C-alpha cells in the first residue's frame, strides 16, 4: 500500500461523483429558474399585476388618484394572486420531488424497472379512496377527499407488504400483486362512477386529471410534511439500496437486514406518494420516468440517483405546470394530462436512443 495517491482510478471515481453532484445542484438551480418562469408567465396574465405595474408609470392626476385611493386594494390583490401562483409552483416542486424520489425507491426495493407508485396499485388505491369520499360523503371538501386518498394509498401499500410478509414474496410477486390490486381499485372506482350522479362524476373526472389548483397553503404545508419527513430516512439508507441491487442474498451476506430495509422504504415511499396524490389527484408519469431518465444520465448509484431523481421530478412538474397554463391559454390544462402527453414521446425517444436494455 505504498503507492502514490491519488491514483488515476481514484481520481476518476472522485471526478465522476463531483460531476454528479454538480448536476444535482444544476437541477436545483434549474428548478428555481423554471419556477421563476412559471411565476412570470402566470403573473403576466393577471389584471392586478398589470395594475400594480401601472402604479409606477407616470400618468398624471389619475396616477395620483390611483396611488391614494386604490393602492392598498390593488397591492393586496396582486400579492394574493402572486401567492396563489407561488403556491402552485411550490406544490408542483414538492409533488414532482416526492414522486421522482419515491419512484426511484420503489424501483430500488423491488429491483424492477416497472415499479412505481402506480404499478404497485398505490396510486389506484388513492384514487379509489378519493372517489369513495366524493360519492359516499358528497365530499366536495378537499380534506375529506385527500384523507380518503391517503388512507387507501397506505392500505394498498400495507396489502402489498402483507403479501410479501406472508409468502416471503419475491419482487416479481409484489409487482404482480400490485398490478392485480391496480385493476381491482380501477374496477371499484368505475363501479362508483357508474353509481354516481352527473355532478359527482364530473368531480371524480376532475380529480383523476391531476391538478395543482385544488390546494391552498394549509394543504401544501400538510403535503410538505408527508413528502419531506421520509426523505432523510431514505437518503440515509441510499447506499443500502445499492446493495439491494446486488440481490437479496448478497445484501444479506453484506450485513443488511433486507426485510426491514424493504418494509421501511416501502412505508416511507408510500407516505410520500400519498402526500403527493392526496391534494393533487393522479399525476402518474413522473414517478416512473424521473428515475429512469436519471439512471440513463448518471447511472445506478442510489446515493445520487435518489436526490437527482427527486429534483428532476420537480423540474419536470413545474415545467408541465407552465406549459399547461400557456399552451392553450386562457384554458388551463390539468397537469396530469400534460406530463403524460409531453413525457411519453420523450421517454420513447430516450428508450430508442439507448442501445442497452437497462442503463
Amino acid at each position, binding site marked *: 500500500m505504498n503507492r502514490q495517491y491519488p491514483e488515476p482510478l481514484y481520481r476518476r471515481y472522485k471526478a465522476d461523483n463531483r460531476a454528479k453532484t454538480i448536476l444535482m445542484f444544476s437541477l436545483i438551480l434549474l428548478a428555481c429558474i423554471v419556477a421563476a418562469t412559471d411565476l412570470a408567465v402566470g403573473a403576466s396574465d393577471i389584471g392586478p399585476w398589470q395594475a400594480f405595474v401601472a402604479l409606477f408609470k407616470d400618468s398624471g392626476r389619475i396616477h395620483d388618484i390611483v396611488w391614494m385611493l386604490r393602492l392598498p386594494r390593488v397591492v393586496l390583490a396582486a400579492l394574493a394572486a402572486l401567492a396563489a401562483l407561488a403556491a402552485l409552483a411550490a406544490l408542483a416542486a414538492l409533488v414532482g420531488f416526492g414522486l421522482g424520489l419515491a419512484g426511484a425507491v420503489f424501483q430500488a426495493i423491488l429491483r424492477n*424497472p416497472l415499479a412505481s407508485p402506480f404499478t404497485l396499485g398505490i396510486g389506484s388505491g388513492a384514487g379509489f379512496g378519493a372517489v369513495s369520499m366524493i360519492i359516499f360523503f358528497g365530499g366536495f371538501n378537499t380534506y375529506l377527499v385527500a384523507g380518503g386518498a391517503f388512507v387507501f394509498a397506505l392500505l394498498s401499500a400495507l396489502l402489498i407488504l402483507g403479501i410479501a410478509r406472508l409468502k416471503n414474496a419475491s419482487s416479481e410477486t409484489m409487482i404482480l400483486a400490485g398490478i392485480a390490486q391496480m385493476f381491482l381499485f380501477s374496477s371499484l372506482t368505475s363501479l362508483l362512477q357508474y353509481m354516481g350522479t352527473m355532478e359527482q362524476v364530473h368531480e371524480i373526472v376532475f380529480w383523476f386529471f391531476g391538478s395543482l389548483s385544488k390546494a391552498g397553503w394549509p394543504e401544501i404545508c400538510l403535503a410538505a410534511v408527508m413528502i419531506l419527513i421520509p426523505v432523510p430516512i431514505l437518503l440515509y439508507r441510499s447506499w443500502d439500496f*445499492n446493495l439491494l441491487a446486488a440481490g437479496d442474498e448478497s445484501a444479506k451476506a453484506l*450485513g*443488511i437486514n433486507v426485510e426491514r430495509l424493504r418494509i421501511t422504504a416501502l412505508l416511507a415511499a408510500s407516505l410520500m406518494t400519498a402526500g403527493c396524490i392526496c391534494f393533487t389527484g393522479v399525476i402518474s408519469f413522473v414517478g416512473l420516468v424521473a428515475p429512469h431518465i436519471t439512471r440513463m444520465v448518471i447511472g445506478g448509484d442510489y446515493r445520487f440517483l435518489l436526490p437527482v431523481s427527486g429534483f428532476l421530478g420537480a423540474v419536470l412538474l413545474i415545467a408541465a405546470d407552465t406549459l399547461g397554463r400557456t399552451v392553450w391559454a386562457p384554458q388551463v390544462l390539468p397537469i396530469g394530462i400534460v406530463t403524460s402527453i409531453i413525457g411519453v414521446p420523450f421517454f420513447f425517444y430516450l428508450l430508442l436512443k439507448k442501445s442497452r*436494455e437497462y442503463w
Partner: protein
Amino acid sequence: MLRIDDLSFNYGAVCILAEIEASVMRGQILSVVGPNGTGKTTLIKSIARIVRPSGGTIRIDGTDTSRMTHKELARRVAYVPQHAPDTFPMTVFDTVLMGRRPHVSWRPSDQDLYLIVEIIREMNLEAVAMRTMDQLSGGQVQKVLLARAMVQEPDYLLLDEPTSSLDLYHQLEVLEIIAALIKNKKMGAVIAMHDLDLAARFSDTVIMIKDGKVFGTGTPAELISPENIRAVYGVEAAVDRANGYLHVQPLRCTGERAFSNEQRLQ
C-alpha cells in the same frame, strides 16, 4: 477455525441438511461436493446466514455465529454468489465498494476508496472499473464478485460454485486467484463445487454430501474414489492420476440415482 457442528436445515417437513459436521482452518480450502440438489448451496448459505439453519452451531474461532449481528458476521465471512442480477447493473467500482458496507456506517472514506482501487488493480479489472456489470464477460463478473468479497476483509470466504458458468481458462484463473488469496491473506474458504477434478486439485479437504448428509470427509485422494463416486453420484468412474493431478473419468450411469432435494420436496 470455522467449525460446523450437527447443522440441520428443514424446509417445512422436508429435511434438506442433517447432522452436518465440517471444519476449515485459515489458509485452507474446504470443497463441498455432491450431486445437484443435495444441499451444497444451502450449506453455504447457512454459514453466511442468508438462510437460518434449523439446528446445530457454526463457530468462527470459537464464537457462535448465531450470537453475532448480520454486520459482525459480514466482517468475518464473505459470500460470493454465482451470478450478479442483471436488472439495474451497477458499475464495477460501485459493486466492489459494496464490500465495505460491513465496515462503514454511512459513507465510505478515502481509505476505503484506496482499498477498492488496490484490489481492482490486483484483480486486473482496472480497464473495466467504470463499466457496468452487464458489459462484462462471465469470468470478469466472477472476478468482480470475488473482489467485493476481498474488500470485505473477511477471515473466511464462502463460494457457491464459482466456476460453474465459466470456460476452461476462467475456471482455472478464478480458482488460482482464490488459492493465492487463501495462501497469502491467510483466509479460509468453503467452496461448493461440481467439478471433481478441480475440487481435487485445489482443496485441502473435501466433504461429500449425499441426500443432505455427510457421506465422507477427507483429503481429495482419500475421498475421491470410484466406490464413493458410484455411491454418491450413481456413476461408474475411473480415477487416475496424471501430471500430478487426480483425474475422474466418468464411464457410465449405474441407474441408481439418489433423489435430489427438489424431488423430495415434491
